[in-house]
């Protein structure tokens, strides 16, 4: 039932005002913050890239921490000076700018400023990633490329037995990583679901903590975990498996918990109303709503893990990735060619199977 339809408004007026003022102050703060950032960025990029690199033509311009600080100071001055004009991106973003809704948005001055920032970023990007047509088309480079491509297209089928074995190792490693991550993710997901945990301050604390840990562990790439674990348990499939498992736990927990957050409250309410025990309420009211989506996510995860296992092999996580790494180090391009083919086939087959299965159980 929608309570907002009641006529009486029981919230006292001053409370609403206070909340409103706070929101307004916060919006203005962020608007100014965005403006200062935008202007400082513009100044810094113009200085370091446009002026020093392009106009002065310096190959390695000197860098000191004073430069960003000066840019920040100058940016702040400009931002404050222009904050109330139509050039303020911050006020536009926070919805504080009164503008004529009928005028097309791209004719607003702040959009022009935005465009300038994007163009500056593009130019800076070209310089920083050292994009060079000359290198790309240099004679020696083209000869090297031709050598590699010829070798890759003439794969050495003598090592196919070894390659297949390594590929099987990779698939199993990904499977075990997924399987081991399942129970952890299953349990953690309940603690990371806002709708189940919003009951009391204690559960909300657990929720925030679990979410934080999951976010941190997810933001560290499996590649990095693989390096850590290869020191811990030694180079090989086990290290790769542990890295994949850790990452799978955090990814799956997040997907699972989002699924829990999306379930309909109806069956839960109905089960509670029958006088069922909380465990029964979860088993009958929650589980039937999540089990198929869970299965689908898990199969997808296995698919992702097989792909990642290949990459992880490059840093010593075992399987076909490690094999690829070894042949690449020896510059045996014919063998590398075969491995690339084997990897492509596995990835394609896994992708196809997992999408078919996910479609079937929808």
């Amino acid at each position, binding site marked *: 039932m*929608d309570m907002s339809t009641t006529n*009486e408004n029981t919230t006292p007026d001053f409370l609403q005002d206070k909340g409103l003022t706070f929101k307004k102050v916060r919006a203005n703060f962020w608007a100014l913050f965005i403006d200062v950032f935008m202007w400082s960025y513009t100044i810094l990029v113009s200085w370091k890239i446009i002026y020093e690199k392009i106009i002065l033509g310096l190959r390695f311009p000197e860098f000191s921490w004073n430069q960003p600080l000066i840019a920040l100071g100058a940016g702040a001055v400009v931002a404050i000076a222009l904050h109330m004009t139509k050039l303020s991106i911050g006020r536009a973003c926070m919805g504080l700018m009164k503008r004529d809704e009928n005028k097309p948005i791209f004719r607003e001055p702040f959009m022009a400023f935005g465009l300038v920032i994007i163009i500056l970023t593009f130019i800076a990007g070209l310089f920083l990633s050292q994009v060079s047509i000359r290198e790309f088309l240099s004679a020696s480079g083209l000869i090297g490329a031709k050598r590699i491509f010829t070798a890759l297209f003439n794969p050495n089928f003598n090592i196919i037995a070894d390659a297949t074995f390594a590929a099987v190792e990779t698939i199993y490693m990904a499977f075990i990583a997924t399987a081991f991550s399942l129970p952890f993710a299953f349990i953690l997901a309940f603690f990371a679901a806002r709708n189940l945990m919003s009951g009391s301050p204690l559960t909300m604390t657990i929720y925030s903590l679990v979410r934080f840990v999951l976010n941190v562990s997810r933001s560290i790439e499996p590649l990095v975990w693989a390096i850590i674990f290869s020191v811990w348990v030694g180079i090989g499939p086990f290290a790769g498996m542990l890295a994949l498992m850790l990452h799978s736990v955090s990814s799956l927990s997040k997907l699972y918990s989002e699924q829990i957050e999306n379930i309909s409250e109806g069956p839960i309410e109905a089960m509670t109303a029958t006088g069922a*025990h909380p*465990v*029964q309420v979860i088993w009958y009211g929650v589980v039937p709503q999540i089990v198929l989506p869970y299965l689908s996510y898990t199969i997808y995860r296995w698919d992702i893990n097989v792909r990642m296992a290949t990459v992880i092999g490059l840093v010593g996580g075992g399987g076909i990735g490690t094999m690829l790494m070894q042949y690449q180090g020896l510059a045996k391009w014919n063998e590398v060619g075969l491995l690339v083919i084997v990897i492509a086939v596995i990835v394609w087959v896994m992708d196809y199977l997992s999408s078919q299965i996910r479609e079937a159980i929808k």
Partner: protein
Amino acid sequence: MFKVENLNKVYPNGTHALKDVTFDVQAGEFLVVIGLSGSGKSTMLRCLNRLHEPTTGRILFEGEDVTHVKGKTLRNVRSRIGMIFQHFNLIPRRTVLTNVLSGTLARTGVINSILGIYNEEDKKKAMDYIRIVGLEGKENVRADNLSGGQQQRVAIARALMQNPKVLLCDEPVASLDPATSHSVMQYLKKVNEELGVTIICNLHFLSLVRQYASRVIALKGGKLIYEGKPLDIDENWFKTIYGEEAVEVTID
């Protein structure tokens, strides 16, 4: 059956949904609660089986104060009160039989219910109720593949599995078409008359109220403003309850 005294409910956001509501429910009656959306009908029903916590006041159920009971006692109280909902609230992707059997969860052990083990007596009873609500042969159909009216009948069968003393119905026909509405109301009437289950039902259509209710109470802005026989709701009362602008819509 129920004795409600000075019931108040204030939601955490400050909405005062129920204001000093006092009324009695006699065993065996078909009590209908009317009022606009947002008048507090659903809140009141959910306070009775404690899906919502009352803020102040007292609720007596069969002479027992249930206002603040917790844990096992609360579950025991709930198990004696059946409930059906506007959106049926069946378990999706599960069969009709499983849904009906879920009405016995309060007396089936936790382990048994997880393994899906129910006693033979309950299984037989479930089949009986499925037949009574006219869904024989649909026991193994997925509940979400049924039509709205059929789903609501599954929900009635599920509630009956609890052997309830009273059945709370939260706008049971609000998402059904007129013909189906009548069929569902007929089943509720049958449950009321033949099984002697007390019914407390939120309804929108006065024509249904006149046809099925034995007594009516009306809520407006969280206050109880009318209590009486369904046929005594005349033009004046109608305007008081629903506002001056309202025009009665009938359903037949």
